[in-house]
C-alpha cells in the first residue's frame, strides 16, 4: 500500500495532480442519481435515507482507482462530494412533499363523487383510492413548479449559507463530523498502511453482516420471524430486562446500531455529555409526565382505553406496562421533544453569538488571503482557497428570488407583501437552522431535520395565518432541503480537509450539482404517486405523516376537538422554556452545550445511548491503549461500521426496489 509505486496507478506522476475531472463528476452524478431514486422510494417506505458520501467513496475507489487505474485521492473526494450533494436532498423532499398528497387523499376520501365511484365498484373509499391512486391529484403544473422552485432555492441557499462557516467550524472549532472522518478513512485507505486498511475492512465486513441480519424481514417479507427476532431486531430494551418502568427508556439500537456506535467512537469522550441531556429528558421528564399525569384528562382517558383494549384488562402489570409505554410516547412527542427543540434553538443563538469573533476572523482570513492572491499573481502558494464572497452574495440573492417566486406560485390566497415577509423570515431561519444542523452533525453525527421543518411551519403559519399553510409547507420544503445540503457540505469539507482538497473546488462542485437532487427526487415521487397511495402500505411516508400531524396541530382542520387545540397551544411555551435553559447553558459554558443537550432530548434514547456507548468505549480505549492505538485500530474499525451499514442499507433498498418492480 505504501512506497514509491502505489498499486493500481499508471502514469500519474507525469500529469497534473487529478482533482476535478470529467470521470469524477460523471461517476458521482450516476451514483448520486441512482441513490436519490432508490432512497426516495426507501424514504417513503422506511422514513430515512443513507448519505451517499461513504458509498460514493467506496465505488470511486473501485471504479476510478481499480478499473480506470488513475483516480487520485482528491479526485475520488470530488466524486463522493457530487454523489452526496445529489442524494442528500431527497431527505428534504420525502419529509415534506408527501404532506400535500396526504392532505389531498384525505380530502378525496371525503368527496361525494369518490364515495359514489367506490360504492359502484363495491369497495370501501380507502380501498378504492388505494387501487386508483391517480384520483388523488395534488401536483398540478403550478404546484409542481412551486415545490421544485422552493426545493432548488433551498438546495443552493443551504450550500451558500454554510460555506463561510467552513473555517470556523472545521479549522477553528475543529468539530468532529464523524461521517466526514469515516469517508476520509475510505479515501485514504489505499495509502494508510496495512494495519488501518485491515481494520477498516474488518469494520465494513462486520457491519454488512450485522445489518443484513437485522434486515431479514425487509429482505424476505414472507419469512415468519421467530418472536425473539421480532422483539430484538430493531432495538434491545435493557430497561425491560432490568425490570424498570416502561416510561424509563433504557434502550440500545440494534438496527442501525453500529452506525451510532461508530459515530460515538469517532467523536470520543467529548460526546459523552449527550448522556446528561438524555438522562434528564428520558429518565426524568418523560417518566414524570407519565407518573404525575401532566396531560389533559381526555388524553389520559384515551391512553387508558387504548391500553385496556390492547391487553384486555384495565389493571395488572400488563396493563400498566402498556399504558406507560403509550403515555411515554405521548410525553416524548408533546413535552420532552419540544423542550429539546427549544434548547437547540436557544443554544444555537448563543453559539452564534459566542463564535461570532471566530466567524469574523475566518471571513477576515479569507479576505486577506484573496487580497494576497490578487497582489501576488503567479505565486502558487497564494492562490485563493475559498470561493469569492461576492459570488456567494449573488448566489444568495438569486436563490432568494426563486424562493419568493415559489411562494407566489403556491400561495394564491395570500397577499404579495406577506409572501415576501414569509420568504424573508424563512431565509433568515434557514441560515440559523443550517448552523444548528451543522453544529449538531459536527458534534454528534445526528441531525434534527424534521424539528427544523416543524419550526418553519410554526413560524410561517404565525405570520400568514391558516390560509398560509401551503406557503408554510413550501418554506418547510426549502428549509429541509437547505439544512440537509448544508450539513452535507460541511461533512464533505471536513473530508476534504483531511485529504487536502482545495475548498473552492469542492464548494463549486457542490453548487454545480445542487439543483439535480431535488428535481430527481421530485420526479421520482410524482411517478411513485401514480402507482401508490402515500400513507398506505408499502409507502407509508412516516416522516410526512409526522409533519402533517404537526401541521394540523397549528392549522387544525375543520372539526378539530378543543383538546388537540390545547395541546398545540402548549408546545410553543415548551420551546420557550427549553430555549431559556439552552441559551443560559451555552452562554455560560460555551462549546455549543445547549445544542448538544437539546439534541439528546430530541433524539430517541436508543440512538443516544448507543452513541454514548461508542464515546465511552473510545474513552476507555484511549486510556488503556493510547491515542495511537485509537487512530490506527479504533477509528478505522468504527469508520468501517458506518460505511458497512450504509452499504448494507443501499443493498437492502435496491433488493426491495427490484422486488417491487418485478
Amino acid at each position: 500500500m505504501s512506497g514509491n509505486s502505489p498499486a493500481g496507478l499508471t502514469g500519474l506522476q507525469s500529469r497534473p495532480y487529478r482533482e476535478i475531472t470529467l470521470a469524477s463528476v460523471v461517476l458521482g452524478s450516476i451514483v448520486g442519481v441512482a441513490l436519490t431514486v432508490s432512497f426516495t422510494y426507501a424514504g417513503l417506505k422506511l422514513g430515512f435515507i443513507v448519505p451517499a458520501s461513504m458509498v460514493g467513496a467506496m465505488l470511486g475507489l473501485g471504479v476510478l482507482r481499480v478499473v480506470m487505474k488513475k483516480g487520485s485521492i482528491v479526485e475520488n473526494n470530488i466524486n463522493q462530494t457530487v454523489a452526496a450533494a445529489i442524494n442528500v436532498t431527497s431527505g428534504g423532499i420525502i419529509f415534506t412533499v408527501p404532506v400535500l398528497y396526504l392532505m389531498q387523499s384525505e380530502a378525496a376520501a371525503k368527496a361525494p363523487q369518490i364515495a359514489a365511484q367506490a360504492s359502484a365498484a363495491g369497495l370501501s373509499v380507502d380501498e378504492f383510492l388505494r387501487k386508483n391512486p391517480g384520483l388523488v391529484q395534488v401536483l398540478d403544473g403550478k404546484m409542481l413548479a412551486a415545490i421544485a422552485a422552493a426545493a432548488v432555492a433551498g438546495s443552493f441557499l443551504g450550500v451558500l449559507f454554510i460555506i463561510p462557516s467552513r473555517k470556523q467550524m472545521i479549522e477553528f472549532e475543529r468539530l468532529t463530523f464523524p461521517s466526514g472522518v469515516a469517508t476520509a478513512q475510505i479515501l485514504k485507505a489505499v495509502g494508510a498502511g496495512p494495519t488501518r486498511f485491515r481494520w477498516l475492512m474488518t469494520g465494513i465486513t462486520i457491519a454488512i453482516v450485522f445489518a443484513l441480519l437485522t434486515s431479514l424481514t425487509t429482505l424476505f417479507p414472507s419469512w415468519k420471524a421467530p418472536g425473539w427476532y421480532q422483539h430484538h431486531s430493531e432495538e434491545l430494551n435493557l430497561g425491560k430486562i432490568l425490570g424498570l418502568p416502561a416510561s424509563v427508556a433504557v434502550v440500545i439500537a440494534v438496527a442501525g446500531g453500529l452506525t451510532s456506535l461508530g459515530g460515538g467512537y469517532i467523536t470520543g469522550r467529548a460526546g459523552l455529555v449527550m448522556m446528561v441531556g438524555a438522562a434528564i429528558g428520558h429518565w426524568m421528564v418523560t417518566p414524570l409526565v407519565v407518573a404525575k399525569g401532566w396531560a389533559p384528562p381526555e388524553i389520559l382517558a384515551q391512553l387508558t382505553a387504548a391500553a385496556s383494549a390492547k391487553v384486555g384488562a384495565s389493571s395488572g402489570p400488563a396493563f400498566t406496562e402498556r399504558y406507560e409505554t403509550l403515555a411515554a410516547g405521548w410525553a416524548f412527542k408533546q413535552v420532552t421533544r419540544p423542550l429539546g427543540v427549544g434548547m437547540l434553538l436557544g443554544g444555537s443563538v448563543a453559539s452564534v453569538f459566542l463564535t461570532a469573533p471566530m466567524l469574523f476572523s475566518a471571513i477576515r482570513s479569507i479576505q486577506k488571503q484573496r487580497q494576497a492572491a490578487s497582489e501576488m499573481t503567479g505565486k502558487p502558494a497564494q492562490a485563493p482557497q475559498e470561493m469569492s464572497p461576492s459570488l456567494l452574495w449573488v448566489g444568495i440573492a438569486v436563490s432568494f428570488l426563486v424562493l419568493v417566486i415559489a411562494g407566489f406560485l403556491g400561495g394564491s390566497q395570500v397577499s404579495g407583501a406577506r409572501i415576501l415577509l414569509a420568504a424573508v423570515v424563512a431565509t433568515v431561519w434557514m441560515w440559523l437552522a443550517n448552523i444548528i444542523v451543522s453544529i449538531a452533525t459536527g458534534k454528534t453525527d445526528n441531525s434534527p431535520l424534521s424539528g427544523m421543518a416543524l419550526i418553519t411551519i410554526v413560524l410561517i403559519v404565525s405570520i400568514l395565518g391558516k390560509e398560509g399553510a401551503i406557503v408554510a409547507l413550501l418554506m418547510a420544503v426549502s428549509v429541509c432541503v437547505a439544512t440537509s445540503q448544508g450539513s452535507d457540505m460541511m461533512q464533505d469539507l471536513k473530508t476534504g480537509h483531511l485529504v487536502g482538497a482545495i475548498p473552492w473546488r469542492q464548494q463549486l462542485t457542490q453548487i454545480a450539482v445542487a439543483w439535480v437532487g431535488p428535481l430527481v427526487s421530485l420526479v421520482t415521487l410524482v411517478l411513485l404517486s401514480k402507482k401508490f397511495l402515500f400513507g398506505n402500505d408499502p409507502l407509508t411516508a412516516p416522516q410526512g405523516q409526522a409533519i402533517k400531524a404537526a401541521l394540523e396541530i397549528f392549522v387544525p382542520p375543520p372539526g378539530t376537538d378543543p383538546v388537540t387545540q390545547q395541546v398545540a397551544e402548549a408546545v410553543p411555551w415548551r420551546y420557550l422554556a427549553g430555549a431559556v435553559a439552552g441559551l443560559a447553558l451555552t452562554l455560560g459554558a460555551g462549546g455549543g452545550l445547549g445544542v448538544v443537550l437539546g439534541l439528546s432530548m430530541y433524539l430517541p434514547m436508543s440512538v443516544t445511548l448507543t452513541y454514548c456507548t461508542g464515546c465511552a468505549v473510545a474513552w476507555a480505549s484511549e486510556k488503556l491503549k493510547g491515542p495511537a492505538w485509537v487512530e490506527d485500530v479504533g477509528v478505522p474499525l468504527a469508520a468501517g461500521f458506518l460505511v458497512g451499514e450504509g452499504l448494507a442499507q443501499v443493498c437492502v433498498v435496491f433488493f426491495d426496489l427490484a422486488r417491487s418492480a418485478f
Partner: protein
Amino acid sequence: MKLVRSSSSWVMYLGMAACMYGGAQWPRPSWPLVAAGLVVILVGIALRRSAGAPTLEVEQIHSADLKRPRRTGSLVEALTSFCEGIETLHNQGSEAELAAIKDRIEELIWLGPERVGSSQEAIAAKVGFSAYAEVMAPLAASERWLNRAWSAAADGHRPECLASLAKALVSAREAEAMGRQRFQGLG
C-alpha cells in the same frame, strides 16, 4: 480548582433539570420553577468562572504510544519545531521514500495543529477567541496542505507532494510568526 470546575458543570446540569421540570408542567410551564432552574445555572456559571481558565493539555504517556513523538515545550516552541519539521521534510522530499514522508507528515500534524486545536478552550480562555483564530487560520491551512502532500505521496505523485509541502511551509511560518505575538506566556 479542577474540582470546582467539574462541580460547576454538575450544578449547571442540576439547573437544567429544574428548568425542564418547570417546563414540563401541564397546561403551561411553571415559570417560577424555570426561573429557579435558571438561577441554579447562573450559580454554576459563576462557579465555573471562579475556577479560572482551564489548564493547557498535559500529555499522558501510553505504552502503545512509544512510536509517537512526545508533545514537549511551550506552544510557541511547538509551532517553531512544526515549521522546522516541514522545512526539513521539504528539503529531503525529492529523495525520501514516499512512505517515510507520509509517516513524518502524520507526526508533524500531531505535534502542531492537533496540539493547538485540542487546547483551543484553554487558549481562548487565556488570550481570547480572536487571538486563537488568528494563529489557527494559517496553521489549519498548513495542516490541509500537509494532508494534500500525504494524499499525493499515497498516490505516488511526488511533484504535487513537494509543491504541497512548500505551501504548507509558507502557512506554517505565518502561523509561527502570529503565534509569537499572540501566544506569548502560554504553556
